[in-house]
């Protein structure tokens, strides 16, 4: 005879009741998740600062937040790390947060999104800077005006640049040595560069690539266009900005500075643009260079570190990356970008910006002015994973562990070549980058006729993009 307990069945009522209770319990337990109230900072009286990166990146900045809160105990700061493949993805996520009514107060903004944010989302800093001019003198005197102008739009400033990277040329010393070449002089030219690539190619193993470049706005074809004194977009300047230049800089330093860059239309039909593209296409055809992949570059540090690449354009951010990849400071070095018609460099910069929608603008400004202080920047940038915008921080000690030996080029780029310009990033940056990337890929993959077709299409697409309202 079976034991009574084994024959007792669960009634439907019991089953439904248990299920209902379980569902109710699960709903109650998941309520914070369902309503989004468990998202850090949401619904709390804190200053929400959005950065591009992971939660580890946010945690790495906690020292900075702690230092700020020690000084401003009434302003709690909460970092919100937003992961994205590139700056474009980051800005889109910020815009989505704005649309959903959960916009942060402060965003770490890069050149790529500076004009888009200035046009639509960001609060100009002019009044705060003017009213606190005496406290800001130290910052501006330490920061190159080219970086400041990159965050100007229609004469107003939208962020205080904290770090930057210019597209310099990294060279693999092992490859140079193997090819019997000396490290190039600062005023080297594009012909010398090409000759270097040919010599490297002749002396190297089969899987060695003399020149590696990526297909994007920073470090792709744009630095070559700048060196050839041209660009994909016609470049002008907005009027204005005198309120800042006259207050913080001497006239001789800022005589060419205006109210920010103004890109007005496509410049792709220019002969110089064609000449630049054709030269790079020739390098690809001669196997001196890779065909650039869109959005590539993930494996670059490892490949450069293993001496399979001779040269590649990158900024100061690479110093730490190569060090972490195990590359000795003696195994590589950096030089200015080669000269063509000019030696104008391309750079990108980044800094905190206040959103117009913020209800804590005064608190946000306190954060901005705090993070621009030297001691705060030293906390924020303990290693050369980027180049700080304060000249006084870029010194031998900063690069002593990582190299490169020629680290001075990082900041001297701005002093030696004051016409150096930011990434061409109008408010329509996403369309510009998209059009550039796909037509570069197409143009570099075939013969001259294919390049001509790609440039014609790039011209059409950029014209259409720039005609659109931002």
């Amino acid at each position, binding site marked *: 005879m079976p034991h009574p307990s084994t024959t007792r069945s669960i009634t*439907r009522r019991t089953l*439904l009741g248990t299920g209902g209770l379980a*569902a109710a319990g699960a709903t109650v337990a998941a309520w914070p998740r369902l309503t989004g109230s468990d998202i850090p900072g949401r619904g709390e009286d804190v200053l929400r600062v959005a950065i591009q990166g992971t939660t580890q990146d946010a945690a790495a900045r906690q020292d900075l937040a702690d230092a700020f809160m020690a000084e401003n105990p009434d302003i709690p700061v909460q970092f919100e790390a937003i992961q994205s493949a590139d700056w*474009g*993805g980051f800005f*889109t996520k910020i*815009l*989505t947060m*704005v*649309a959903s009514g959960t916009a942060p107060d402060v965003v770490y903004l890069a050149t790529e999104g500076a004009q888009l944010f200035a046009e*639509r*989302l960001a609060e100009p800093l002019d009044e705060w800077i003017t009213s606190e001019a005496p406290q800001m003198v130290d910052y501006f005197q330490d920061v190159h005006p080219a970086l400041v102008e990159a965050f100007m739009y229609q004469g107003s400033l939208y962020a205080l640049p904290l770090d930057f990277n210019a597209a310099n040329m990294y060279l693999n010393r092992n490859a140079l040595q193997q090819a019997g070449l000396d490290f190039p002089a600062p005023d080297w030219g594009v012909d010398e560069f090409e000759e270097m690539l040919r010599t490297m190619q002749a002396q190297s193993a*089969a*899987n060695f*690539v003399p020149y590696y470049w990526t*297909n994007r706005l920073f470090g792709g074809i744009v630095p070559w266009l700048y060196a050839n004194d041209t660009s994909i977009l016609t470049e002008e300047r907005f009027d204005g900005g005198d309120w800042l230049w006259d207050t913080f800089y001497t006239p001789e330093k800022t005589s060419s500075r205006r109210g920010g860059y103004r890109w007005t239309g496509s410049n792709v039909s220019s002969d110089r643009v064609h000449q630049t593209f054709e030269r790079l296409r020739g390098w690809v055809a001669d196997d001196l260079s*890779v*065909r*650039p*992949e*869109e*959005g590539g570059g*993930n*494996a670059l540090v490892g*490949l450069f570190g293993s001496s*399979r690449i001779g040269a590649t354009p990158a900024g100061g951010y690479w110093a730490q990356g190569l060090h972490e990849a195990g590359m000795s400071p003696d195994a590589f070095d950096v030089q200015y970008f080669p000269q063509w018609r000019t030696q104008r460099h391309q750079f990108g910069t980044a800094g905190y910006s206040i959103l117009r929608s913020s209800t804590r603008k005064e608190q946000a400004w306190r954060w901005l002015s705090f993070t621009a202080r030297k001691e705060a920047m030293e906390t924020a940038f303990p290693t050369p994973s980027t180049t700080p915008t304060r000249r006084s921080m870029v010194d031998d000690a900063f690069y002593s562990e990582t190299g490169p030996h020629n680290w001075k080029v990082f900041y001297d780029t701005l002093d030696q070549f004051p016409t150096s310009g930011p990434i061409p990033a109008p408010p329509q940056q*996403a*369309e510009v980058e*998209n059009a550039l*990337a*796909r*037509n570069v*890929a*197409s143009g*570099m*993959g075939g013969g001259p006729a294919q390049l001509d077709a*790609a440039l014609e*299409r790039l011209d059409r697409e950029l014209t259409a993009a720039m005609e659109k309202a931002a």
Partner: protein
Amino acid sequence: MSIDTAPTRSTSRPASRPSAEDSPSHTRARRSRRSERWVIILLLAPTVLGMGIFTLLPIVGSLALAFFEWDLITAPEFAGLDNFIALGADATVRTAFLNTIVFVVVAVVLQLALAVFLAVMVQSRMPVWLRLFFRSTFFFPLVLSAASVSIFMRYMFNEQFGVVNWLLGTVGIAQVPWLTTSTGAAAVVIFVFVWQNFGFSFLILLGGIAAVPQELYEAAEIDGARGWKAFKNVTLPLISPSLLVASVTAMITALQVFDQPYVLTRGGPGDSTRSAVMVVFEAAFQRLEFGLASAAGLVLMALIMLITWIQFRLSRRFVFYQ
């Protein structure tokens, strides 16, 4: 005129006598039916609610949004058919949709051919443990993240440093520009998609093949049909219902391809691997043209529905139900 007041059997019952419907057993049955109805409603409610909130509402919202211009920040503005006209006028959009159709044809044919071939192989005589191994192995890519697989494949197919070209090099084949030429990039995207997705078709078809009665093969063998003949005349007709399910799901998945071309090539070189869903993504999340993105999404949805409808219409001719 007389009125028949005689009680009829069907309408008149003594009030004092309970009818069969009012009997306790019938009342219990009615309560039980009512209770069952509530159980059904209760059990369906989460799915219906979920579908309503997360599928139906977005479709309706997207349908409405397709007639507006909206950039997330400013208020939407009614645009009539402008978004659809802009889609038609955009060469990139046309190329992307054409790419998608070509991709679907090639990828689905390859996927089904590979799945049928492997399913037949695995179902043939082999030890049970080996069959189990193949089943798991072929299904395994499907559980991986498409983005992770694509990143991995991107390294493998790198022209200068990838293992694929290295292997080709060991047999004297020159480096192939897999991801930087139109043909190479398209081939890699199709390969990665098929590699990752054929496992689902394989499982469906494996079930179909396992259900084919052994006697039919024996009868066919007596009639002299073996190998290819047996496959063509016995297996293929009998697995045609499974083949229909596999082809419909494969077609729908292929029409929505995004991860592989986005991670491997970003749609390039040029527009050679740009897919319809990439157009939707780029319009919405790169250019903030949500109206245009919705319009593109609706066109894609219509295309999927049309192709699925054609498949089901054709299935009447080619699918054999036992």
